[in-house]
């Protein structure tokens, strides 16, 4: 009886333990950023790559655009906002679930972009 009970406890422990791994679909003890769905479509890059490198891409292209007058690059902040602006607030930073704001809150990184740049898409939805 006792060994059988031990096996049961072990199995239960494995099941519960398995749930805390990141990437699991079940609710996790680790809080995740809540990103509400936006206009959608295909991003200009792979999401995992964009998550790590969007700041570098934006910084590179801002100099091309401002100083070189090249406005055809794929990684423009305006294009990001056009796709990622929330359907409810029409912005990327207006509420805590908006695209830019949610992740930046989560990672505790201040966004300076929108002190100067518009956070709303150019074309009205």
């Amino acid at each position, binding site marked *: 009886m006792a060994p059988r009970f031990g096996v049961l406890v072990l199995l239960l422990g494995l099941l519960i333990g398995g749930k805390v791994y990141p990437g699991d679909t079940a609710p996790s003890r680790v809080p995740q950023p809540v990103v509400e769905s936006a206009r959608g479509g295909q991003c200009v890059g792979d999401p995992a790559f964009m998550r790590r490198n969007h700041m570098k891409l934006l910084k590179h292209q*801002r100099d091309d655009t401002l*100083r070189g*007058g090249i406005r055809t690059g794929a990684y423009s902040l*305006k294009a990001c*906002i056009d796709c990622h602006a929330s359907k409810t607030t029409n912005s990327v930073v207006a509420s805590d679930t908006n695209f830019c704001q949610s992740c930046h809150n989560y990672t505790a990184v201040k966004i300076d972009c929108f*002190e*100067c*740049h518009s956070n*709303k898409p150019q074309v009205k939805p």
Partner: protein
Amino acid sequence: MTPDASAPSNDAGDTKSGRRGFMTFAAAGVAGILIAPGVRLVEIAQAAPVPGKASPGASSKVRWGMLIDSTQCASGCTDCVTACNTENGLSGGTKSTDSQWIRKIEIKELRTGNTQSLPMLCQHCAEPPCVDVCPTGASFKRADGIVLVDKHICIGCRYCMMACPYKARSFVHSPQTDQKPDVPRGMGTVEGCTMCVHKVDKGEMPACVTACASAGHEAILFGDLNNPESEISKRIATYPSRQIREDLNLDTGVRYLGI
């Protein structure tokens, strides 16, 4: 003619030929690198100078400029100012803390009493004093002659405002919201007329030029000062135009007729 031709031929051993082979290979590589950017520059130069067509980048073949005919500019008309404010999201206020990228001024000759009205804006100098004094390199001149502020690196010291003889720049004193997507503006940075660079890059005219034309005055002419076939170059060649503060030798991109 290759560098190899001048090399002595009597010492071409195995090692030497090996090295020579490498040198030829390396030279070919360098030539390839040199040709590729050259081709790109030619493409840009050919594509840029056409007004009404989107450009792939600012080109030094072009120098954008304006010719303002003060005899056509109506006293009391502020359509260019309004259009600028609307296009760039400015408040339109005229307090010392409000941004004014273009403003109307009245000049009067005291002896004769003759008055004239003209718009004053960034003169987009070829030798801009604002660029000379900027400690961070934020104030800069684009290849096509448009003088801009890179607000990413502007520290708001306002040296450029002091250096500008035309009082053409403004400092943003308060936090901004609802900026235009094409025209970022933020507190703590200096700004000024951009010659509607976002429109010019798309091949369109600056907002003030369009507004003046639709008001029926057509006092502002925009075009390429480097192209002798452009309307602005022809008019400058035909009629006597003036630069304001010519004595400073700034070679302004904005020129005036009738003053």
